[in-house]
């Protein structure tokens, strides 16, 4: 993402102009937008024209519109962002107050104005514009009969393909069905890799599986590549990295990402950092349960005591459309930072973020033990969930 302009007033109102460049930038933009903001971008509108004779024709016209945002829709598979709203700047084609849906396009700039730019959104912009964050990793998590082909970007894990093949078990005196099905399965995974992984962008492909599946698969893939003279695979052979995972389900990607062999190769990926932070939280919960809190009420209480060392929070919470609720989370983040704590904002599109999302979305590792809330308060907070 490129930041073209940033005009902020003293009261934190103002506007920024950005140019999204990659699919991931759409995700960032999705996280910036809120209902009530105004968005100005170039778009295509179907306009009805009536000629002097009264015949009606319709034209598609490219025009720049400014909308007051009413609904935001993000398609994580295609990385497309659609923003619906009413027009607040009349032009020759579109009347004031008319509804329109803008689909943001890469490499076309847009301007976003907010009444209130808070620290979380500003940090997001900074992060999105930092080119160092771009480290694309692809991962194939597999077990016999099941494979997920994923793309791991700093803030997203996208499942590109899921291959599921029924593999008959070995039976007394009959293994051929098993072997044939296995070969078919590998073939499908290779196809999925070729179709979904762009080797120009991707620096590293993790092949993770339990047992010997990964070895067998890599052998198969490169044998086939040699046979069919597939240059694409052969040239990128060095990018493939085999790691262990306990299963072929998507969440096992987490294990692959914290493998030391992987972390050394990908010096800085946010995904691996998040996995580690969550692990630390669980470790703390194991050893000193009074120093690991989760749930908004509990964490806020810990924050009051200025006890938070690391705050883990899911970005899902900042997409909350209710302004007051959102402000509560922002306040929490700001106050932790003020107290010299570190804040880690998890992407809800990562596996670890998904898990944190299930765990109320907010957790904290404390500097010193804080006694747990009494039971009555406990009741009230859990009813809220």
């Amino acid at each position: 993402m490129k930041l073209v302009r940033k005009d902020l007033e003293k009261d934190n109102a103002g506007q920024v102009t950005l140019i999204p460049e990659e699919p991931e930038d759409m995700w960032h933009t999705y996280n910036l937008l809120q209902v009530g903001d105004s968005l100005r971008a170039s778009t295509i509108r179907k306009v009805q024209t009536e000629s002097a004779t009264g015949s009606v024709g319709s034209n598609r016209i490219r025009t720049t519109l400014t909308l007051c945002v009413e609904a935001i829709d993000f398609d994580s598979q295609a990385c497309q962002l659609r923003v619906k709203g009413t027009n607040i700047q009349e032009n020759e084609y579109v009347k004031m107050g008319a509804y329109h849906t803008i689909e943001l396009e890469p490499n076309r700039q847009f301007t976003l104005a907010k009444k209130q730019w808070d620290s979380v959104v500003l940090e997001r912009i900074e992060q999105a514009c930092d080119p160092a964050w771009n480290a694309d990793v692809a991962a194939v998590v597999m077990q016999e009969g099941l494979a997920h082909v994923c793309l791991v970007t700093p803030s997203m894990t996208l499942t590109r393909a899921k291959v599921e093949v029924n593999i008959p078990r070995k039976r007394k005196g009959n293994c051929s069905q098993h072997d044939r099905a296995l070969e078919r399965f590998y073939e499908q995974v290779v196809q999925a890799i070729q179709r979904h992984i762009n080797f120009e962008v991707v620096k590293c492909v993790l092949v993770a599986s339990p047992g010997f599946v990964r070895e067998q698969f890599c052998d198969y893939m490169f044998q086939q590549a040699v046979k069919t003279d597939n240059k694409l695979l052969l040239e990128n052979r060095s990018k493939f990295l085999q790691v262990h995972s306990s299963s072929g389900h998507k969440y096992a990607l987490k294990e692959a990402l914290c493998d030391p062999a992987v972390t050394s190769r990908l010096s800085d990926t946010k995904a691996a950092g998040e996995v580690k932070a969550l692990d630390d939280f669980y470790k703390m919960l194991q050893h000193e349960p009074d120093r690991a809190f989760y749930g908004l009420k509990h964490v806020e209480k810990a924050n009051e005591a200025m006890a938070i060392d690391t705050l883990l929070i899911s970005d899902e919470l900042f997409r909350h459309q209710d302004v007051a609720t959102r402000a509560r989370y922002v306040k929490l983040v700001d106050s932790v930072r003020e107290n010299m704590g570190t804040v880690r904002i998890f992407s809800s599109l990562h596996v670890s973020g998904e898990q944190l999302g299930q765990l109320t979305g907010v957790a904290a590792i404390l500097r010193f033990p804080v006694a747990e809330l009494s039971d009555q308060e406990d009741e009230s907070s859990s009813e809220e969930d």
Partner: protein
Amino acid sequence: MNSLSLSPTLVSKKLNYLIRDALVIAEENGHANTPQKGLLTEDTSVASRVLEAVSKSTLSPQVLQVSEEPNTVPTPVKKPSKTKPQIDVKAELEKRQGGKQLLNLVVIGHVDAGKSTLMGHLLYLLGNVNKRTMHKYEQESKKAGKASFAYAWVLDETGEERERGVTMDVGMTKFETKTKVITLMDAPGHKDFIPNMITGAAQADVAILVVDASRGEFEAGFETGGQTREHGLLVRSLGVTQLAVAVNKMDQVNWQQERFQEITSKLGQFLKQAGFKESDVAYIPTSGLGGENLVTRCQSSDLTQWYKGKCLLEQIDSFKPPQRSVDKAFRLCVADVFKDQGSGFCVTGKIEAGYIQVGERLLAMPPNETCTAKGISLHDEPVDWAAAGDHVSLTLTGMDIIKINVGCVFCDPKEPIKVCTRFRARVLIFNIEVPITKGFPVLLHYQTVSEPATIRRLLSVLHKSTGEVTKKKPKFLTKGQNALIELQTQRPVALELYKDFKELGRFMLRYSGSTIAAGVVTEIKE
């Protein structure tokens, strides 16, 4: 009423009458039918067809108990030529039980303890593997530089398994002892293949735990990180109560009594904690490679001077067959799906409850589709019926193979199994490294299914022995705790409550390659 037995036409007349007044007839039948069984063997096709209609029409609530009576009257024991037979499975089962009993046995233990070799050698000594095949395996394994793996090749059949010398999937075969027919499942010992081992163990009644007696190896398998403990806990949680421990590779320690005792005392303590009764655990010193103390008692004086007990085969023979739920509705969990010659496709699995006959309609869950069982085979031989406990392969028609996955449950269309994505369960937390909180992603292993799930809620911590609630809504769960939790699966799974079907109410939870909890289903939500 005696005429009923003699002429089939009369029977059908009587049966028409029966429709009119089912209650009275049923009472009469009550004393009339018992001596007649077996006489009605020929040409009862008309009668049985009428009877089907009768039994349907008389199935009103007040006559429910008695309506079963006329149903059993003309049930022919032999197979009539034209119509689909209605076999009295219970009587047949008793007859079969008079012969050899069926028993499902799983072999478990740490990787390289010698499970496959032990069982392969046992099969060879029993004559289930002919000499020529064995000779071939010996030659080939020698050529591959793995001469000691020859017996394991009996069970490890895929190229990959032989090449690596590691069992990867459950190997299944059968053999016979003096009083029993054993379905043998040879589970993989490697850590990464525990999901496969669970599917095998879920179908087992009894287990053999193989441990390596040689110095250092037993310890490696027994200490944390080894599979001896995990396997032991798993089979116990999956409902296996009888266990034989084969202390293998005893020849490598010169059949020392001290070593045997050291191992048995260590293991005994652990198994007792795991919940095995001391009387249900037997220890047998063996040598899988040498074939000592497998089918015949060992002659070697090193052993006989201190060991007077059974050999492995005798021990297997003395296992008590468990109670089977034949009276309950039919349930079969699919362990494997494949295409065979001819029409339709095959599924294999163990019948957990009820019985089935050729030609019956079945309902598959979760896809919720019906199909017909065209053929049943037990140990590769076609049979007309099968009952709970049998490890069968069904040939099905009337359904597309893609709809059926491993883990589907076939059941009686009248009493379908419940399907849900959210359920509550009582779990026992194992020795875990990280505490369990809500939102924890786990793999749910239920029978033959492995399905990703998340822990939705931690409801309460229970007292270990009394089951009382000690803490409501805990923040997290740690090792050894007993708790009520709510689980959510990604896709629907077919489940039964533990109180209804013991065999089908158990499950395991695994997380990043280790088993974190065992549980039973207490409530199905939706």
